[in-house]
């Protein structure tokens, strides 16, 4: 796993291809999961969410998959575009309160 202080891992994807960004979450009691996109110089922006009673949810060009057995979350972006270049964070919430825990993030780099 990634340690605090190390640079973000980078995923490089050809424009037009599909991107898959993975995240391992920590708390088996978490019941709500969110993906955020952060563009350079801006704060994180909500992309898509999923509750633990689902294993897949689709949005516009994005799909989130949840595997509770192995505590794994993924974000799939179809037909990646230059505007998708950003840092992507997963987050988990739940248990008995609204405390949120963020993953370390992955930088998505689009190749022309």
């Amino acid at each position, binding site marked *: 796993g990634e340690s*605090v202080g190390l640079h973000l891992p980078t995923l490089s994807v050809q424009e037009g291809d599909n991107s898959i960004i993975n995240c391992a979450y920590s708390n088996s009691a978490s019941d709500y999961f969110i993906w955020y996109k952060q563009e350079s110089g801006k704060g994180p922006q909500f992309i898509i969410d999923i509750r633990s009673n689902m294993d897949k949810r689709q949005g516009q060009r994005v799909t989130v998959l949840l595997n509770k057995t192995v505590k794994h979350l993924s974000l799939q972006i179809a037909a990646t575009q230059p505007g998708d270049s950003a840092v992507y964070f997963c987050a988990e919430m739940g248990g008995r309160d*609204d405390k949120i825990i963020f993953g370390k993030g992955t930088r998505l780099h689009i190749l022309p």
Partner: protein
Amino acid sequence: DAGITQSPRHKVTETGTPVTLRCHQTENHRYMYWYRQDPGHGLRLIHYSYGVKDTDKGEVSDGYSVSRSKTEDFLLTLESATSSQTSVYFCATTGSSKAFFGQGTRLTVV
């Protein structure tokens, strides 16, 4: 995001001076957080609050203190700023399964 504002948005300060950043929310959320983000890195949690006067440390709390005297305000204080605290600081709130981020405060310690 609507309902959460940070002030100031930019600040330059000298090493050794105290600095306070303010986060104000109108969502009546219970949880509030302060993160720092350095170039090429993810969000690192400094401190968070789970209610008025209830706070706890995050992973990078050394050199920082916080206070929450009202639900809507969460203050982050650098008691004696150091150059290593030059960063972008983000405030966030969570409540009712929603999370909101402020626009960030760019702090430069010279």
